[in-house]
């Protein structure tokens, strides 16, 4: 086993050589006995382990807090949807709603009024020999959208 393979195995299997696969263990122990550099690599990896053992971690939530939140009665999907909708509607003023409805109505009226005119224009253009495939026709369609 080379030093590179040894270092790779430390990263792969950890610093407890006893828990390495049987095939790698004997070669690793032989290398350790013969190579001070191998011993140093193992020592550095062990120090990394110790570093993480001393790292502070914030305390978890208390048992009672976890328990009460997890076991609290959960509202049904329907009531959650209702609550969400009422929240949305609640933040939406009547003025805004009226404005939206007016815009919708104007759009419907304009659409119904303009459609026949577009057909008349198209027919007139056909009379002048300008087809729908022409650049003008395409441009008209694009602008209209």
């Amino acid at each position, binding site marked *: 086993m080379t030093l590179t393979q040894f270092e790779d195995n430390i*990263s792969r299997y950890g610093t407890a050589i006893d828990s390495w696969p049987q095939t790698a263990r004997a070669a690793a122990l032989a290398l350790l006995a013969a190579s001070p550099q191998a011993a140093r690599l193992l020592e550095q990896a062990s120090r990394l382990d110790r570093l993480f053992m001393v*790292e502070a971690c914030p305390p*978890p*939530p208390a048992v009672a807090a976890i328990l009460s939140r*997890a076991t609290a009665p959960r509202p049904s999907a329907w009531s959650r949807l209702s609550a969400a909708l009422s929240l949305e509607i609640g933040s939406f003023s009547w003025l805004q709603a009226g404005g939206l409805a007016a815009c919708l109505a104007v759009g419907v009226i304009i659409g119904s009024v303009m459609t026949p005119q577009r057909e008349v224009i198209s027919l007139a253009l056909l009379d002048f020999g300008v087809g729908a495939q022409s650049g003008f026709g395409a441009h008209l369609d694009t602008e209209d959208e």
Partner: protein
Amino acid sequence: MNPPPGLSVSAEQSDEALVDLVAGGDRQAFAVLIERHRHRAMRLAYTVTRNRSAAEDVVQEAFLRVWTKARDWDRSGAARFAGWFGRVTVNLAIDGARRVREDPLDDTLPLADPGTPSDDAVHAGQIARRIGQALATLPERQRVAFALCQIDRMSNAEAADSLGISTGALELLLVRARKAMRSKLADMIEAIR
């Protein structure tokens, strides 16, 4: 060991036996399970998210899953609760870490007590900060592999199973993560006795 009269659970019961009781709505069993795994869950969640409040949310959500999914627990196989719970926690922590990236203002590395910090507390805070910075630079999959094997002490096979990847793929992530951490924390490693 049988539980004392009047109690449905004892501290010696296996995780899997407790999950069975939790499936029946047993809050005592659930409390024992929470006490047994909450520190581990917090450490795992915090390692992945590097954010205290996000990690707390992950722990809460992970135990909520236990409470609501206990009935679906597969009793027929050899599945271990610890492995399943680790997987759930890590997956939630990955989502939590993504939200933290979107809202980085809520970053709370553990710091020393702001009152009268002792040398040890300041030192612990510095270590935490450096480790946090180093972990944050790891790609997410490497960080998760590192968290499961280095922090949660899972075997490579267990961690691979938790993540739904092959052991070989897990080990590849682990090799890269550990080498990166050794390199990034080289000065601290040298200073440790």
